[in-house]
C-alpha cells in the first residue's frame, strides 16, 4: 500500500501534459484571486476574513441552537428538514421519496457534500437516473471520474480531451471550441431539466434566520435544477449553517473572490421553501437533508473543529505547491489539497492514509489565503503527531521512531553532536566535487540519504566544525 500512493504521485509528476494543465489552471485562479482581493479592489479583505472566522466559530460552537432555528424557520415556510447520519440515510431518503412520488429522473448541481457520500453513483445503482448539470461535473461524470478540484472539477481536462470524450460518449462530431462544446452539453442537459422529477443540489450556506438555503453558481444550472423539477432536495453538511442573513454580506464577498476572483458569482439564489400560491415557478416540495457523516466527531476538539469553517472555495488548492504538482486524484478521499489533507484523516481516521498529513512542505500558503482563516499547517502538525501515536500503538514505523530517539539524545549531548558532524564530514568528503556531494558512499546509499540524492546534490559539510572555527576566532580576537 505504501508503494501505491508514491507510484500514483510519480505517475502524475511524469505526465508533462497533465503537469502543465494543473499548473496553468491553478495559476490562473491564483492570479484572478490576487487581483480580486487586492487593497484597491477590496480594502477590508483582512477584516472580512477575521469576521468570517468569528461568525463560523460562533456558528459551530452553537450548532445545536442554529440547526433548530433553521429547521423551525424552514418548516414554517413549508419546507421539510431531514437529518441524515451518513450517506446510506441520504440514499434511502431519496430512493424512498422517488418511489413515493414516482420519480425517475434526477438532475443534480455540483456539490462536494454529495461527492463525499458518492450519492450520484448510489442513486444510479438504485435505478434512479441522476445527471450532473454543472459543465465540469457533466464532463467528469461522462468520463467516469471523480472531480479533480473543489471548484473546477474538470480542471485536468483540456478542450481536446473534452472533444474526444463528447464524441465517444455523446456520439457527436469532434468539437474543440469550448463555446461549441458548451452548446452540445446544453442541448443534452436541457432535455433532462425538462423531464426531471427531482432537482438535487448542495448548499453553500444555510441561513438559520430566516431559514434559507443559499446557492452560488456561474452557469445557471442551479436555477434550473431548483425551479424546473417538481421537487427540490438540498443535501448539506450541518456545518454550512450561518446565523443571520446579514452574515452573507461577509461570506459572499469572500467566496467568489477566493474561488475564481469574481467579486460575486453570476447567480446567487436564496431559497426559503417550496413555491407559494402566488408564485409562478419553483418546486412543489422542498427538502433539506442535513448530513452529519462524521462532522459531529470534530466538534469536541477545540482546535480541530475549525476544519468545519471551510466554505469550499478551493483557494488553498490553487496556492498549494503540492496540489499544483500532484493534482486532485492522488488524494485518498473527496477533498483534495490542503483542506483535504486535514479533513480526510479527521473524517476517516488517521491510519486510513497515514502518509497524507506528511505530504506537505508546511509552507503555509494555504493558511495565508484561506478566507475563513483555518490554520491548516497547525492542524497538519497535530495530525502528524496523532499518526505517530497511532503507529506506536500499532507497532509500526519502529525504525524511524528509534532514529528520532537517538537524534534527540545526540541533540542533548553537544560533544557527541560535534563529533558526529566531523565524522560525517570526513566520510562524505571523498565524494565531494565543487563544494557539493553528488552521491553518498555506496554503503550509505539507502533510506533518507538515497531519497535526498535521488533528486539533488548535498552541499558539502565543512572539514572543521563551526565550534572549532569559533574557538580559533575567539583566540585570535583575544590575542
Amino acid at each position: 500500500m505504501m508503494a501505491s500512493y508514491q507510484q500514483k504521485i510519480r505517475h502524475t509528476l511524469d505526465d508533462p501534459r497533465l503537469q502543465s494543465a494543473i499548473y496553468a489552471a491553478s495559476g490562473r485562479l491564483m492570479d484572478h484571486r490576487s487581483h480580486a482581493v487586492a487593497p484597491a479592489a477590496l480594502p477590508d479583505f483582512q477584516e472580512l476574513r477575521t469576521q468570517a472566522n468569528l461568525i463560523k466559530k460562533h456558528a459551530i460552537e452553537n450548532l445545536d441552537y442554529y440547526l433548530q432555528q433553521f429547521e423551525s424557520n424552514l418548516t414554517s415556510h413549508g419546507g421539510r428538514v431531514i437529518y441524515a447520519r451518513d450517506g446510506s440515510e441520504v440514499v434511502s431518503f431519496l430512493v424512498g421519496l422517488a418511489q413515493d412520488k414516482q420519480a425517475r429522473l434526477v438532475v443534480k448541481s455540483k456539490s462536494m457534500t454529495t461527492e463525499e457520500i458518492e450519492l450520484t453513483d448510489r442513486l444510479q445503482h438504485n435505478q434512479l437516473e441522476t445527471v450532473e448539470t454543472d459543465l465540469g461535473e457533466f464532463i467528469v461524470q461522462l468520463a467516469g471520474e471523480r472531480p479533480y478540484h473543489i471548484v473546477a472539477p474538470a480542471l485536468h481536462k483540456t478542450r481536446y480531451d473534452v472533444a474526444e470524450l463528447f464524441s465517444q460518449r455523446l456520439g457527436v462530431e469532434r468539437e474543440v471550441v469550448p463555446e461549441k462544446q458548451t452548446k452540445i452539453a446544453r442541448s443534452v442537459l436541457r432535455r433532462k431539466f425538462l423531464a426531471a422529477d427531482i432537482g438535487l443540489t448542495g448548499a453553500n450556506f444555510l441561513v438559520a434566520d430566516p431559514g434559507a438555503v443559499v446557492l452560488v453558481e456561474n452557469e445557471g444550472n442551479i436555477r434550473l435544477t431548483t425551479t424546473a423539477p417538481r421537487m427540490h432536495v438540498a443535501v448539506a453538511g450541518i456545518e454550512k449553517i450561518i446565523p443571520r442573513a446579514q452574515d452573507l454580506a461577509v461570506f459572499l464577498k469572500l467566496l467568489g473572490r477566493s474561488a475564481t476572483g469574481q467579486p460575486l458569482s453570476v447567480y446567487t439564489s436564496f431559497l426559503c421553501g417550496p413555491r407559494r400560491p402566488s408564485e409562478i415557478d419553483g418546486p412543489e416540495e422542498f427538502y433539506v437533508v442535513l448530513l452529519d457523516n462524521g462532522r459531529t466527531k470534530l466538534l469536541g476538539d477545540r482546535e480541530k473543529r475549525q476544519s468545519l469553517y471551510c466554505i469550499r472555495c478551493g483557494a488553498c488548492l490553487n496556492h498549494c505547491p503540492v496540489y499544483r504538482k500532484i493534482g486532485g486524484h492522488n488524494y485518498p478521499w473527496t477533498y483534495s489539497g490542503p483542506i483535504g489533507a486535514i479533513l480526510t484523516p479527521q473524517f476517516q481516521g488517521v491510519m486510513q492514509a497515514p502518509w497524507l498529513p506528511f505530504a506537505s512542505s508546511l509552507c503555509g500558503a494555504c493558511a495565508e489565503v484561506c478566507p475563513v482563516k483555518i490554520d491548516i499547517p497547525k492542524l497538519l502538525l497535530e495530525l502528524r503527531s496523532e499518526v505517530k501515536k497511532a503507529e506506536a500503538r500499532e507497532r509500526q514505523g519502529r525504525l524511524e521512531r528509534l532514529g528520532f530517539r537517538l537524534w534527540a539524545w545526540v541533540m542533548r549531548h553537544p560533544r557527541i553532536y560535534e563529533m558526529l558532524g566531523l565524522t560525517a564530514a570526513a566520510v562524505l568528503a571523498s565524494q565531494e566535487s565543487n563544494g557539493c556531494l553528488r552521491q553518498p558512499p555506496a554503503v550509505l546509499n539507502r533510506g533518507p540519504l538515497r531519497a535526498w540524492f535521488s533528486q539533488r546534490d548535498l552541499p558539502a559539510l565543512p572539514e572543521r566544525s563551526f565550534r572549532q572555527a569559533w574557538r580559533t576566532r575567539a583566540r585570535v580576537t583575544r590575542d
Partner: protein
Amino acid sequence: MAVAEVLERIGYTVDFPEAQTCCGQPAFNTGYREEARQVARHFLEVFRHADYVVVPSGSCASMITHHFADLFHKEPYWLEQTRRLEPRVWEFSRFLLEVARVEDVGARFPHLVTYHDSCHALRWLGIKQGPRRLLWKVRGLRLREMEPAEECCGFGGTFAVKFAELSGSIARTKLDTIRQTGAEVVVSVDSSCLLQIRGALSRAGVPIRTMHLAEVLAHR
C-alpha cells in the same frame, strides 16, 4: 560566522554557547512531540541567560516563538521558560532592523542577486520587505525579483526525503523562476531553503550561487 561578523561590526558582543544544538523542529514537524520537547528543553536551558538570541533561520525562529508554547502547554515550568525567552528571540534580519535599527551595515557586494522568501520567515514571522531593505543598502548590489519570490522551494524537512520526487519537482520549478532573473546569487534568510536550492542548482549544473543574507552583509 557571518552573523557574528555583522553583529560585531555594528557593536554587539556575540557569544556562541557551545552547548547549543537544535531547537527540535525536525522531530516536531515529523510528529514526534516527546523527542521535540527533550531537545526544546535543552535549547531553553542553553539560552536562558542571553540578552538576545539571534537566529539566522526563519524556520528555527518560528519554531521557538510559535510552537514551543504548543509543545509545553501541559508543562507550566517549561511554558514559563518559553514565555521568558520568546521576546528575546530574533530572526537575524529583524534583529538588525528592529533592535539594532540599522539598515546599512557597510557591506559591499557587486553582484546581481535575487531574494527567495522563505516560507516560515514570510508567513509566520511576517518577514518580506526587511531583508530587501538590507540588500538595497549593500554597495554595488542589484536586486532582481523572482516571479513569484514567495513560492516554496519544496524542502519541508523530512518532506524532502519522504516525498523526494515531489520535493525535487517543486525545487526544479523554483529553479526555473530563479534562472529567469539572470541573477548570479540567490539569497535567503533560511539555511534549509538554501540547502535545497543549492543542492538542486548543483544537480542541474546551474552556476548560480546561494548565500545567506548574513554572508552578503558580511561581505566588504
